[in-house]
């Protein structure tokens, strides 16, 4: 057998083994190593049986996945998605939108679609959107006597938008396989994505005007009279923060201000802050009562509370100062160093905080600003105590750091680093804010998000490790060339080739998941695009659209499968 034939055999065996159901990434690694060993086998150059270039290739490909700067966005976007998914933001959103749209025909369906589109923008994971909306919007629509298949269709279609609307994980993965810039892909996908969402909404309105029995108007007593002001508050706490988060992430990427990973990190942090914000609101209003609110107070707590109040005030001053500096730097085009801190003097924050705290104790209740954060309820008691704990802890850590730096002379080791007394201020503020955030955040939810993120990232990225090894051996053996020549010999026109490729991908979308298709099968088509003069960007958007459709279409519609799982039994 010649080398290219071996390569084709390799692909054939691989496709057969996929059907056996073994985890694909390890199949890819093993077949890459085995066939690579054959490909690089050269008795004259090998000093031992382990001295084969395939091992270098394997580890080099692994390292290039590990240090890939496009794929860094994958865990960050996943993390953002899981945080938003687990923070109960969606039901608030759906409820608000449902009330806001109540005068339109098919109002609930529209609200469901809009929620899906926004949620999809934040997560990019299909299964989650469909199941959540299936639990939330589907029973609500059935209760309002919506047509069952109409309601189910709305949710499946809305849920699948996630694959297309940026920032979708799938497009990042495609960008990493095809070397198309993520920004261009996102710019390309945003129009069809939102166009599709808009068309769905137009379709829903049209259908329900023609046939009102599909989507009867909700009765007034079901929703109740909601004043404009109340609606505005609901929108301000559910719709706008999420919309702002999404728009800033997307805007930063599309305007070329930040790389996708940077935008994703900011998005994840924003999601975290949003979740913490909802929780603080809940705790202060007494809707949520964590253990530590009802726990008995210790006598020493009052001192920590004083320090905590001081720390919060100083923190607010500090944030205002930094924001002012940032604004000046941004508009004035200056370079501003963060070092130096508030008023340029180290140590002042901790002392200031103590004095502010003691001062607050004396005037508590009479000064409006301090009165607002002065501990009155058990919840604020506990919060201020935590702020005090954190501030003190941060101070101790910073002192230990300074002593260590001066005693052990770390300067020699960390040459670029200039240790300074500013650490005290940073320790104080970061300690207070960080410990407070850590106590407030729902740790179970955070833990779930972190663990799910790492599992999904491992799934996607290990697939890359296998696939890059496999495909470099495949093309070294000449398999890529052979397939290319074979396709070219069929003498297809570009349009025919495009249709053929899309049909194959559509068919693959039934049994396989998107990750396998994009990472393993799409690269087979990519080298041929140049010959047919097809832009890989265009091809990528088509693949995304295609996969989205294939998830919606029988016989293997994943979306319907998820919905079936959570729907009421009679559906």
């Amino acid at each position, binding site marked *: 057998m010649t080398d290219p034939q071996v390569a084709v055999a390799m692909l054939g065996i691989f496709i057969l083994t996929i059907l056996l159901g073994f985890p694909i990434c*390890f199949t890819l690694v093993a077949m890459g190593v085995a066939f690579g060993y054959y490909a690089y086998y050269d008795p004259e150059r090998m000093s031992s049986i382990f001295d084969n270039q395939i091992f270098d290739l394997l580890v080099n490909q692994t390292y290039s996945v590990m240090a890939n700067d496009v794929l860094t966005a994958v865990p960050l976007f996943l993390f953002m998605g899981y945080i938003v998914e687990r923070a109960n933001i969606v039901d608030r959103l759906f409820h608000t939108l449902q009330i806001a749209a109540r005068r339109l025909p098919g109002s609930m369906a529209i609200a469901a679609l809009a929620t899906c589109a926004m949620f999809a923008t934040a997560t990019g994971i299909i299964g989650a959107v469909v*199941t959540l909306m299936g639990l939330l919007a589907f029973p609500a629509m059935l209760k309002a006597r919506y047509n069952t298949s109409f309601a189910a269709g709305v949710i499946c279609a809305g849920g699948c938008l996630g694959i297309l609307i940026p920032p979708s994980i799938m497009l990042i993965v495609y960008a990493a396989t095809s070397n198309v810039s993520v920004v261009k892909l996102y710019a390309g996908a945003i129009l069809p994505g939102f166009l599709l969402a808009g068309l769905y909404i137009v379709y829903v309105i049209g259908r329900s005007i023609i046939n009102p029995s599909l989507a009867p108007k909700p009765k007034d007593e079901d929703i109740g009279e909601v004043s404009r002001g109340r609606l505005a508050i609901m929108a301000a706490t559910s719709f706008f923060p999420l919309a702002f988060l999404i728009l800033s992430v997307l805007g930063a990427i599309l305007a070329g201000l930040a790389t996708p990973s940077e935008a994703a990190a900011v998005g994840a942090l924003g999601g975290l802050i949003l979740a913490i914000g909802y929780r603080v609101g809940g705790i202060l209003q007494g809707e949520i009562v964590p253990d530590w609110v009802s726990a008995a107070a210790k006598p020493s707590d009052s001192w920590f509370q004083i320090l905590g109040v001081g720390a919060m005030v100083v923190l607010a001053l500090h944030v205002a100062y930094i924001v002012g500096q940032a604004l000046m730097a941004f508009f004035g085009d200056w370079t501003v160093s963060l070092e130096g801190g508030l008023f340029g003097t180290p140590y002042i924050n901790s002392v200031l905080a103590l004095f502010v705290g003691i001062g607050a104790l004396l005037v508590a209740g009479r000064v409006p600003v301090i009165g607002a954060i002065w501990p009155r309820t058990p919840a604020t008691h506990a919060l201020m105590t935590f702020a005090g704990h954190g501030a003190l802890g941060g101070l101790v850590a910073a002192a230990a750091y300074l002593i260590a730096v001066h005693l052990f002379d770390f300067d020699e080791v960390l040459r670029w680093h200039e240790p300074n007394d500013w650490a005290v201020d940073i320790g104080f503020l970061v300690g207070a804010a960080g410990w407070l955030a850590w106590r407030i955040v729902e740790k179970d939810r955070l833990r779930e998000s972190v663990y799910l993120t790492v599992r999904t990232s491992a799934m996607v990225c290990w697939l890359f490790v296998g696939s890059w090894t496999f495909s470099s051996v495949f093309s070294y053996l000449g398999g890529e060339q052979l397939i290319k020549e074979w396709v070219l010999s069929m003498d297809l026109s570009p349009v025919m080739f495009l249709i053929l490729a899309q049909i194959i991908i559509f068919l693959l979308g039934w049994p396989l998941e998107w990750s396998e298709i994009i990472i393993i099968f799409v690269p087979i088509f990519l080298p041929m695009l140049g010959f047919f003069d097809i832009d890989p960007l265009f091809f990528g958007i088509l693949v995304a659209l295609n996969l989205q459709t294939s998830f919606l279409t029988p016989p293997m519609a994943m979306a319907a499968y998820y919905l079936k799982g959570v729907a009421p039994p009679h559906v």
Partner: protein
Amino acid sequence: MEQFIFLIDKVTAWVGKAFAWCIMIMTLGVSYEVFVRYLLRDPTSWAFDISYMMYGTLFMMAGAYTLSRDGHVRGDVLFRLWKPKVQATIELTLYILFFFPGVLALIIAGLDYAGESWFYGEVSVMSPANVPIFQFKTITPIAGSLLFIQGIAQCCRCIICLKTGEWPRHLEDVEEMETMLLHQQEEEEQYQTATQGDRAGSA
């Protein structure tokens, strides 16, 4: 044997979960970089290196954890239809035929690669901060070894399944939203049918 499997599961899950927190470091580090670079125009010299190192570390170290929870994607169209015994036979064969050689190659080659890097005291070329990367390259053989011991546990699972005809249970863990909800739904239905059965019986 089940105890042995759970021991390995616990070890790899602990490592995977511990390194999962790298995502927090990554989020905070990159956000800090965005803040000082775009707003204060005073970029850091380390944030880029931190971001890809955290990313690489977290997914490599979680490989074995993901394997233990059956999280690696597989083409299971036919696989689902077979009996557990057939599934186990095929899996056991493929673990021995595919998994161990591949992972061993990764460990051996990774050791060489990391050893060279330690020898030079290699630093990153991406940034002027001279961030060392030899520890990052050492991740490859470590992740490979974790996968290796997890592979042994998976083989034990197959053997148990061959003996009893049923897949042994997994440790409790976080589930994806959809899986979690599906399970809940199933349990509720079972509960409902059970209670209905009781009622019918008492009537």
